[in-house]
């Protein structure tokens, strides 16, 4: 067996982009900052050097115009990868995204395809505040015609990016900033990965957990604690939000009878509400306890860490929810102590020293 290669998610994104651009000369990268010294958190590193300015395009600060340009070029046959340093900046482009991007295939009687990838980076922590940390997963998921993915592991960042670029449909990639530096094993070669349904990554018997992005890592981190209590669970990485294929989740709940869905975005009107509803439409009779949702409270993101502290779910809230649904609440205090909580809530790791 060859030695595993360990790289970060941002390196994985970078690698996927380079492979795709080498494979297909129609692929180009465009966005504010793609050629600047920060290289979109390293994800666009070396692109200009390898492919030149013609295919790696720095832009004015005009998100709506840029998006329309990408869509038009995609209708003609190019494959743009568009980058926004924050989800929030794409709000200016929603008209183009919702009308032309999402509807072109439909309204052209299935003749136009819009093979565009829109990378949206989710800010979190270090006081990002209300207009630099919106997630809006369910806003995009709500627009028929868009695919929406949210990779969590380095391996997925590469494989799913490659699939997204190849896909003839518009794909929104929600990239959680705190995942950029996570390391993992990533194959060097080209490979693609499913972007049509969620990924079951653990098998268990007591309950079904659905999570994605940063929350998924938190679930994985408390896994040991749970196992030590004899708790096992089916775990789904909801890294494909749209198309929202819930078949495997429903099968799982039929088996476990319990579900916890952790939304990366708001709990209210989030993806979790759709999943829970489908559960009650499809296997109400199998539920052994009430479905549980975890997600952001229904308010803008506060900047100060003193408020952001309670804004995001964390290992503790997730652990408690699991113990509660399994009626093991009495173990809470004991188990909470096992959580390593040495990192302040507003940074991904201790190496992070601000400001962006």
């Amino acid at each position: 067996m060859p030695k595993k290669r360990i790289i970060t998610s941002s390196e994985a994104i970078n690698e996927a982009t380079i492979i795709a651009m080498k494979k297909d000369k129609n692929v180009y990268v465009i966005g504010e900052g793609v050629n600047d010294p920060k290289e979109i958190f390293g994800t666009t590193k070396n692109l200009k050097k390898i492919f030149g300015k013609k295919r790696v395009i720095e832009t004015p600060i005009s998100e709506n115009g840029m998006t329309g340009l990408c869509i038009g070029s995609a209708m003609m046959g190019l494959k743009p990868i568009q980058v926004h340093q924050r989800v929030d900046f794409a709000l200016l482009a929603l008209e183009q995204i919702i009308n032309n991007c999402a509807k072109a295939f439909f309204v052209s009687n299935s003749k136009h395809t819009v093979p565009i990838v829109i990378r949206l980076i989710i800010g979190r922590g270090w006081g990002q505040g209300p207009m630099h940390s919106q997630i809006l997963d369910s806003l995009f998921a709500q627009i028929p015609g868009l695919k929406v993915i949210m990779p969590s592991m380095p391996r997925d960042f590469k494989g799913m990016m490659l699939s997204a670029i190849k896909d003839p449909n518009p794909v929104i990639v929600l990239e959680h900033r705190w995942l950029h530096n996570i390391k993992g094993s990533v194959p060097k070669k080209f490979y693609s990965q499913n972007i049509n349904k969620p990924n079951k990554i653990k098998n268990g018997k007591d309950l079904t957990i659905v999570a994605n992005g940063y929350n998924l890592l938190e679930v994985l981190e408390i896994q040991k604690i749970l196992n030590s209590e004899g708790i096992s669970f089916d775990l789904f990485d909801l890294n494909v939000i749209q198309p929202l294929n819930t078949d495997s989740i429903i099968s799982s709940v039929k088996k476990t009878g319990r579900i916890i869905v952790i939304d990366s975005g708001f709990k209210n009107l989030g993806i979790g509400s759709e999943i829970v509803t489908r559960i009650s439409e499809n296997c109400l009779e199998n539920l052994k306890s009430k479905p549980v949702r975890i997600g952001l409270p229904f308010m803008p993101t506060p900047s100060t860490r003193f408020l952001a502290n309670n804004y995001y779910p964390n290992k503790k809230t997730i652990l408690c929810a699991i113990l509660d649904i399994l009626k093991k609440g009495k173990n809470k205090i004991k188990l909470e102590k096992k959580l390593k909580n040495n990192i302040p809530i507003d940074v991904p790791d201790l190496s992070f020293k601000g400001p962006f």
Partner: protein
Amino acid sequence: MISNNNLKSLYKDILKIRIVEEGISDRYSEQEMRCPIHLSIGQEAIAVGVCKNLNDKDQIVSNHRCHAHYIAKGGDINKMINEFYGNSDGCTGGRGGSMHLFDQNKGVLSSVPIVSSAIPLGVGAGFYFKYNKQNNVAVIFLGDAAIEEGVFYESLNYAKILSLPILFVCENNLFSCFTDIKERQPKNLIKKISKTFDIKTSFLDGNDTINIFNKTKKIISEIKKNKQPQFILLDTFRMFEHCGPNKDDYLNYRNPKLIKKWDKNCPLKKMEKLLISKKILSLKQISDIKDKYKVKIDNIFKKCRKKKFKGPNLKEIKLYA
């Protein structure tokens, strides 16, 4: 100098558009064309004068008022009229209706009824040509109100800084629905704006087909050579209501003198006068051509009206490619 053949051909295209538009107007009250329609009667010269200089690979984008552009660029009239009737043989299979006309074979890339929304798509087409070193031009048709949406400026900027082969064609008919341009824009904004972005700009009478054809010919060859966007502003007038099959001048939102002036300036009448005065066509020949076209187009209307919708039905429509 423009050849007699070209003159005839320009005339025939205008005529074709006019007959289609009048065909809609005449039949709309039958309530079988059940979608909003924005007639281009009075504004045909621009579509025809510009598009006659384009080939099938050149792309155009348009807005809600897209009938004339579509036909002038060679779009399939049969598919267009089917679209009005909501038939599956329509160019969008009935999905979009009259405001979403497109024809992939003929370079009608897209029509989008959200004001200005197609403009950056056209920029994208220009980008494609540059990217692929393909010697074509993307033409963006826009109304005077499109100037008011922010994305228009963003698009001018992209076209300029990326040096894209794009022709912006702004049809100033002085109104956005019922609202006079004077209420919406400072004086002459529309004349000055593209120059501000260092985009070469020409001003033309939007009802003078021949001049439009001649000037655009030159402009398009410049664009193809220099790979720089250009802008044409054309004054014109819509003879019918903003949306619908009738005239609405009884509502008095436009000065009657203005209406009269532009009525006299009708591009179809002007072309006929010219052809006759230059003895290129006789009155009789014109009348024959008209009859021939009318019969042909009437037939299309009749056939389309009778068609059944053949699916796919809603459940069979695929959301994703």
